[in-house]
């Protein structure tokens, strides 16, 4: 839009036209507008990074140099690793964005994306082969990458892990057919012990003092008369404590570098007296945190950013577990309501910038991950609302400010996830409604009472801790407590579940990757009844889940020694207390789950087989197999029969809904037999992110009428696109037949609602009644996509004019123009449920 048009049109006019992005641009402060535009868009578009976004080679070089230097050191691995992290932090380029009040970025420059060469050689090869993301001049960069890769070949985490896995399992996983990702401890989603580190009681310096005491005591103990296994175990603990201390001290040092930089600019270059004061405030803030606990909102946000920056220097993080209103809220309250040091507008600027600082973070990820994430770097689903440890409403002024700021900055990542409970106040609900109505696609709604019970059921967390949960990734609630938080969740425990039903038909042979991946359940035509067919389904389900879980269990067991995380340990009470690495399974109750991509295809396929083959006997199994082998080519009329004349999930039809329940209960029963190294279960969590697109060319023809190449359903327990013919109430009713406490970990449900109908007070009343019913039905999750078709079609035609259109793509938001055409079509195809 031309600047003139933007100037001449009022906020109200933009809002009437539902051009929320332009309305926001006019409404936000000059500072927020500048900061919003100053960040680079890092999420990959259709698997490719945007022009201008480059891999950060600085860190790779720093790390490689230090690794070479440490090669002949006698230190324990964990200490060498800590020194490497410290070296990166001490030497990386730092910057402060003009007009910013918060500082700290994962990579070295605003347009670069972090690259950790020590995680996986397969990732390093991708960097080398990604010509668009390699900085100019390319030949020089390629030389650097080559050297880095040559050094790390055989030394990365995955290289060192490979020999200790089962090779057959590993090959099946790496074929890309049944799983998504690799079993890497330093490449997943780390929840954190926020109760220890974020409650204002202590910060890095306090922990360092505590570590010094621990080291002194340990040292004394190991040299006192006596020799028990405890004595020699203490050697490892001393190393771990030392490593924690090294990273924490490095954290304080890099913060002070930021402080110095701010002061140098203020005292030597900045001419604007107002900005000079701001820079001095940044300096003061970075001198205070993370060494000491924050005293105000700015320090609190800055502290959080430093912790995230450190964590993302130590590992590749694919998620951002956070509960910002709960942990930063008291500082907001203090500054705005008690001390009056910030006006509401000033606070909103800080909150908006906090979202922007998170939005710019990016680390290089392999293409399959990027395809599965479409438009964002990771699933940064920040949890807000909910209750405190005693069950009281935890919403505060910052809960509201976060939602107001989200509407002003309109970033696709982070998104917000709201913990609904019966005590939520109307004023908070209205903010949620307004965000969704304005097409943000978030906050999504989580049913707190259900999820608290679920968390206790699967892992045995005490209720006070279960109430303190934040999403560990998209959907899995994890207590941010001493024994509750899970330091990593490996993305490879993500099952491409459509393969379960595919393998029933092929006897476990995968025709796409040409290998036997599933169980050998034999020739499908010999099954005499649906029960035999279903038994084979159960067998394939168990086989696929087991392959994935075995790998994670193995990696998790070895992680404390092979791939420790001294920084994450250093902000965890249980590691400080015990001297053991954060990955040590015996210290946690566990939060393992299997993400179930492409789950609902199983249900619709089983229903079609049951009805058309076994009950009506309209087709023989041999005919079905022949049609599927031919990818339905030449069998179009038969295919339509399977699409139209078999019941589909999501229509409040017990015939197929009962099959859903049966499949989930089989999986739930098996998840109790599967054990994680903490001794707990592996419940499943149906969701898709954008896996439905990634797997389109990997999943073969299915009995629900799907052909190889067709986009899969958009995920979780959402019905297939256009197949939910009875409208949104029937979808909710179908979903309510699932026991959202004991049938699995969480269940993603997308619903598209028409924004044009949601205007005004009646729109809110309608939405509120809908949400109340959703809660009564005991469904754990729902998220809304409120953009109308006309907007989406227009965005498809002229993407440059709709840069800010945000839509829901399973599990998170992405900018519509960023996602592939296939995903776009898929979204538009979804049945619109006009509310109003």
């Amino acid at each position, binding site marked *: 839009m031309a600047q003139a048009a933007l100037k001449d049109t009022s906020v109200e006019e933009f809002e009437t036209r539902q051009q929320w992005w332009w309305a926001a641009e006019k409404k936000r402060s000059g500072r927020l507008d500048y900061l919003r535009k100053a960040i680079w868009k890092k999420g990959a578009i259709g698997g490719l990074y945007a022009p201008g976004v480059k891999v950060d080679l600085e860190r790779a070089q720093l790390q490689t140099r230090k690794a070479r230097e440490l090669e002949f050191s006698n230190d324990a691995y964990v200490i060498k690793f800590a020194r490497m992290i410290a070296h990166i932090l001490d030497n990386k380029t730092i910057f402060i964005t003009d007009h910013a009040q918060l500082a700290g970025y994962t990579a070295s420059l605003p347009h670069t994306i972090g690259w950790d060469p020590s995680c996986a050689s397969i990732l390093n090869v991708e960097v080398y082969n990604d010509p668009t993301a390699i900085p100019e001049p390319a030949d020089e960069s390629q030389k650097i990458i080559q050297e880095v890769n040559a050094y790390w070949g055989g030394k990365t985490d995955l290289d060192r892990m490979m020999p200790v896995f089962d090779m057959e399992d590993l090959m099946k996983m790496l074929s890309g057919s049944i799983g998504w990702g690799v079993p890497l401890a330093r490449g997943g989603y780390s929840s954190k012990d926020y109760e220890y580190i974020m409650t204002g009681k202590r910060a890095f310096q306090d922990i360092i003092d505590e570590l010094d005491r621990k080291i002194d005591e340990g040292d004394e103990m190991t040299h006192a008369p006596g020799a028990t296994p405890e004595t020699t175990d203490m050697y490892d603990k001393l190393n771990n404590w030392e490593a924690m201390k090294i990273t924490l001290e490095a954290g304080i040092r890099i913060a002070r570098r930021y402080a110095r930089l701010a002061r140098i600019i203020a005292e030597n270059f900045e001419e604007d007296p107002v900005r000079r004061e701001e820079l001095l405030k940044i300096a003061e803030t970075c001198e205070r945190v993370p060494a000491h606990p924050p005293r105000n909102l700015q320090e609190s946000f800055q502290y959080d950013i430093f912790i995230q920056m450190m964590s993302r220097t130590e590992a590749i993080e694919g998620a951002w577990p956070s509960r910002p209103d709960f942990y930063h809220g008291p500082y907001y309250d203090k500054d705005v309501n008690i001390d009056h040091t910030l006006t509401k507008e000033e606070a909103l600027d800080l909150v908006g910038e906090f979202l922007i600082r998170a939005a710019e973070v990016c680390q290089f990820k392999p293409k399959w991950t990027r395809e599965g994430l479409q438009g964002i770097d990771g699933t940064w689903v920040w949890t807000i609302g909910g209750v405190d440890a005693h069950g009281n409403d935890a919403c505060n002024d910052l809960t509201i400010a976060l939602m107001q700021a989200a509407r002003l900055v309109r970033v696709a990542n982070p998104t917000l996830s709201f913990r609904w409970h019966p005590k939520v106040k109307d004023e908070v609900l209205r903010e949620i409604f307004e965000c969704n109505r304005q097409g943000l696609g978030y906050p999504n709604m989580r049913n707190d009472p259900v999820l608290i019970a679920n968390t206790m059921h699967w892992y045995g967390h005490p209720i006070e801790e279960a109430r303190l949960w934040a999403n560990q990734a998209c959907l899995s609630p994890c207590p941010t407590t001493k024994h509750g938080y899970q330091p990593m969740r490996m993305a490879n425990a993500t099952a491409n579940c459509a393969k379960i039903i595919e393998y029933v038909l092929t006897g476990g042979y995968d025709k796409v990757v040409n290998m036997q991946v599933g169980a050998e359940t034999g020739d499908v035509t010999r099954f005499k009844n649906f029960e035999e067919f279903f038994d084979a389904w159960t067998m394939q389900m168990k086989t696929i889940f087991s392959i994935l879980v075995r790998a994670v269990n193995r990696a998790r067991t070895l992680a404390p020694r092979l791939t420790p995380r001294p920084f994450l340990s250093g902000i965890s009470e249980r590691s400080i207390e015990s001297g053991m690495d954060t990955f040590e399974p015996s210290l946690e109750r566990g939060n393992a789950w299997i993400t179930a991509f492409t789950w609902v295809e199983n249900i619709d396929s089983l229903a079609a087989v049951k009805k058309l083959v076994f009950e009506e006997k309209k087709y023989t199994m041999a005919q079905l197999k022949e049609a599927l082998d031919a990818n339905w080519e030449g069998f179009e*009329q038969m295919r*339509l*029969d399977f699409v*139209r004349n078999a019941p589909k999930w999501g229509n*409040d039809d017990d015939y197929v809904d009962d099959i859903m329940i049966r499949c989930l209960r089989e999986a739930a029963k098996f998840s109790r037999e599967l054990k994680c190294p903490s001794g707990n279960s592996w419940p499943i969590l149906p969701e898709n992110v954008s896996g439905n697109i990634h797997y389109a060319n990997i999943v073969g023809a299915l009995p629900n009428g799907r052909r190889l190449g067709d986009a899969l359903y958009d995920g979780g327990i959402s019905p297939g696109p256009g197949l939910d013919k*009875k*409208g*949104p*109430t*029937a979808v909710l*009713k179908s979903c*309510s037949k699932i026991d959202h406490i004991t049938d699995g970990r969480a269940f993603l449900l997308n619903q598209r609602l028409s924004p044009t109908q949601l205007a005004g*007070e*009646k*729109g809110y*009343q*309608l939405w509120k*009644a*809908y949400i*109340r*019913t959703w809660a*009564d*039905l005991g469904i754990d999750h729902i998220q809304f996509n409120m953009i109308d078709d006309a907007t989406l079609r227009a965005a498809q035609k002229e993407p440059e004019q709709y840069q800010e259109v945000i839509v829901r793509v399973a599990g998170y938001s992405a900018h519509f123009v960023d996602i592939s055409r296939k995903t776009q079509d898929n979204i538009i195809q979804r049945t619109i*449920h006009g*509310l*109003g």
Partner: protein
Amino acid sequence: MQQQALVTDIQKFAVNDGPGFRTSVFLKGCPLKCAWCHNPETISRAPEIYWKRRLCVQCGACMEACPQEAINAPVPPEESREPGSAYQKIIRDRCDGCMKCVDACLYGALCVAGRPMSIDDILDEVEQDRPFYDNSGGGMTVSGGEPTAHPDFTGRLFLAARQRGIHTCLDTNGFCGWPILETIIENVDIVLFDLKHIDPAAHRLLTGVDNALILKNLSRLSRNGTEIWIRIPIVPGFNDDMEIHLRMAQFLAGLPGKISRIDLLPFHNWCQDKYDWLGICWPMQSIEALEPSLLEPAAELYRETGFAATVGGSGFEHTGT
């Protein structure tokens, strides 16, 4: 006793047919012939066949299945899908409604409008959405067509609904004998009463019937103390004149009982596909849908007369009554 009635649709999540989330049940058959009717499939009392030209691939399976030779030979699909194409699949005057063509169609291009349902069939489906009614003051709305055209069935349907504790609305054009209406409303919580025009001649011209009975029934209903929501479809060139609204407002103000609210429903032509599916050429097809905001002055007029009025009839609009 009528055991079953033809139902053209049971629409869940209806939010403009009475308070809250409702399930609207559309019965087939109507004594009026309103020119703007947006449910043309509910006028006839007999089952009808839809032919959806956009979905038809012209495979010819229906022609082979038809024992009456009431199906036209296939033409290239591009031809039949062309805007303005005169091609029709069904030769309606030969068709005896055996529905063999519908069974033969795999593409969803031929379907039946009007399936027979019993009271229990209907209420079982209605009851599926009970949790939504409970949170919104919603329930079942019986619409059509004209529910009073099936007096016995509709009366027992409402009775059974009330016995199951479901809130009930009757959506009626008021064109029936008073004893029929009087019996039916015994188990109706709110009557959504369609008022199309105040002038008898104009009414006759575009609906085919006189409005004297309708106005009289409204008056009796009002005296009876039943909760009434007036619904006025606003049709361009028919009743969009402020003068007409003034007269209607005066009439309504003169009724013996209270009118809870007046909903002005803007004309739209989104039903044009349905006319085409029935093989009917609809003269109003090219009249654009009315912009709801254009109805605000009329709504204001009713408000000034002392009524609560909405445009669109949302079941979630608090009208302050």
